[in-house]
C-alpha cells in the first residue's frame, strides 16, 4: 500500500501556538487547591466511615491547578474512595450531594474512565449510573464543556 516517504515531522507542529490572536483561558488563582487530604481520607476508610471519606475526597478539587501531579494525586484519592464503596451504598452517597457536587463527581468519574483498570471500571459504571440519574445529561455536558477540569 502507499507509504509516506516524505518527511512528516511538520505534522506534529501546533501552528495555533504561534497565532498572536489565539484564545487564552483566563488565569485564575490556584493557591489553596492542593486536592483532598489523602492521609485523612485513608484513615477514614480504614475506620469504615465511607460517607465522611467521600465528602472529604470531594473537597478542594484542583480545578485551577496547572500542576499535573496535584491532579493525579487528587484523582487517585477519589478513585480509592469510589472503589471502596459497596454497590448498595452508592445511591445514598450520590443523593447527599448538591448540584455542584454531582457535577464534580461526574468529572472524577470520567477522569477515572480514562485509565481503566481491572477493578475500577465496573464500580465506576455503577457510580456513573447513579450520578446520571440525579444530574442528567446536563451534568455530562458540563464535563465535556468544562475548560477547567480535575
Amino acid at each position, binding site marked *: 500500500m502507499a507509504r509516506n516517504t516524505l518527511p512528516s515531522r511538520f505534522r506534529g507542529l501546533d501552528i495555533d501556538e504561534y497565532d498572536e490572536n489565539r*484564545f487564552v483561558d483566563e488565569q485564575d488563582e490556584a493557591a489553596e487547591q492542593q486536592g483532598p487530604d489523602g492521609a485523612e481520607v485513608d484513615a477514614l476508610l480504614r475506620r469504615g466511615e465511607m460517607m465522611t471519606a467521600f465528602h472529604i475526597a470531594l473537597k478542594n478539587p484542583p480545578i485551577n491547578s496547572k500542576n499535573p501531579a496535584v491532579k493525579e494525586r487528587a484523582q487517585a484519592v477519589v478513585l480509592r474512595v469510589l472503589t471502596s464503596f459497596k454497590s448498595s451504598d452508592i445511591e445514598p452517597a450520590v443523593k447527599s450531594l448538591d448540584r*455542584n457536587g454531582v*457535577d464534580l463527581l461526574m468529572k472524577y468519574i470520567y477522569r477515572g474512565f480514562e485509565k481503566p483498570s481491572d477493578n475500577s471500571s465496573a464500580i465506576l459504571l455503577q457510580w456513573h449510573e447513579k450520578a446520571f440519574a440525579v444530574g442528567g445529561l446536563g451534568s455530562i455536558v458540563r464535563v465535556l464543556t468544562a475548560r477547567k477540569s480535575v
Partner: protein
Amino acid sequence: MHFVQMKTKIALCPNNHDVHIYKKEGNGWTKTQVLKEHNGQVTGIDWAPESNRIVTCGTDRNAYVWTLKGDVWKPTLVILRINRAARCVKWSPKENKFAVGSGSRLISVCYFEQENDWWVCKHIKKPIRSTILCLDWHPNNILLAAGSCDFKCRIFSAYIKEVEEKPAPTPWGSKMPFGEVMFESTGTAGWVHGVCFSESGNRVAWASHDSTVAVAEGGKTAVITSLSSETLPLLCVTFITENSLVAAGHDCYPALFVYDGEKGTLTFGGKLDVPKQSAQKGLTARERFQNLDKKATSDTKEAVLESLHKNSISQISILQGGKAKCAKFCTTGMDGGMAIWDVKTLESAMKDLKIV
C-alpha cells in the same frame, strides 16, 4: 432554518442562499416572493416592523437591507468589512441601526449615512475573542447584548453619535461611549447560544452550551444567577414576562424558567410540551428477540421523539404581547417546522404551571 414573523408575513431561509417571504392566507401560508442576492447561506434575517425593511446577513460576509418598492423587494448592499461569515443580525428598536455578529470576532454596528446615501458600519472588537453567536438590543436603542463562543455574554454600548442623542443612565452604567463593555458574564462555561434583554432592559438572560441558563440584573455590581439543568444545552431564550423565561434547545421542547429577583434564584418552571401519551403496543416474541439482538434491550419504548418538534429548536420569537406580557410565541427548529404556542392555553393545560 432562520425566520422572522410579522403580523401576517414570514421571512425565512430554508438553509440556502435565498430568503422566502410567505403571506398568511386563511389557514395556510403562500409563498409570495423569493429574495435572491446572497452568495452564501443566509444566516440571519430581521424584519423591522415600523419602517418595513428586512436586513439579511450570510456566510458570503455581506449584509443586505431590503426595501419594498411596489411589490418587489430591492436589496442594498452593506459593507460589513468582515473577513469571516456573518452569523446573526438584529435591527435596533428605533430601526435606525442594526448590528451584525460574525466569525471575525467582532460586531458590525451599521447606520445610514444621509450625505453619502449608503450604510456604513463601526466595529466593536475588544475584548471579543471568538465568534458572536447571538445579539439582542436594549430598549434604549444604545446597549447591545452579545453572546459569543469565547464563553461570555457581554453588554456593549453601540452609541452612534451621528444618529442619536446621548443616552440617559441605566442600571448597567451611565457612561456609554461606543464599544464600552458595560457588563461581562462570569460563572458559566460553554458557548453562549442565545441572549435576551427583558422588556425593561434591566435584566439580561443567556443560554450556554454547558446546559446552563443565567440571568444578570443590572446594578452597581451586576448580580448573576444561574441554573445548571439536567437537560441537553439550550439554544434560544426569551423573556415572556419580566420574571419568566422560555428557553428551548437540543431537547426539542420549550421549557419555562422563573427568576426571583428578591431571592436571587432561577428555577425550572416546567416543560411546555406535554406530548399525548400514545398507546403502548405489545411486542411479539419475535420483535422482542430482535430488539435484544439489535439494541441489547427488550424495552418496548420506541426510539421516536414524542415532542412536537422532531429536532433541536433553534429559535423562539415573541408574536403577541411583547416581552412583558407575551401571549403567543413561536418556535422554529432544525426539523424545518414552525410551532405557535399560546401562553393562556399552556397555563390552563398544565396544572402546576404558573407564569409570574
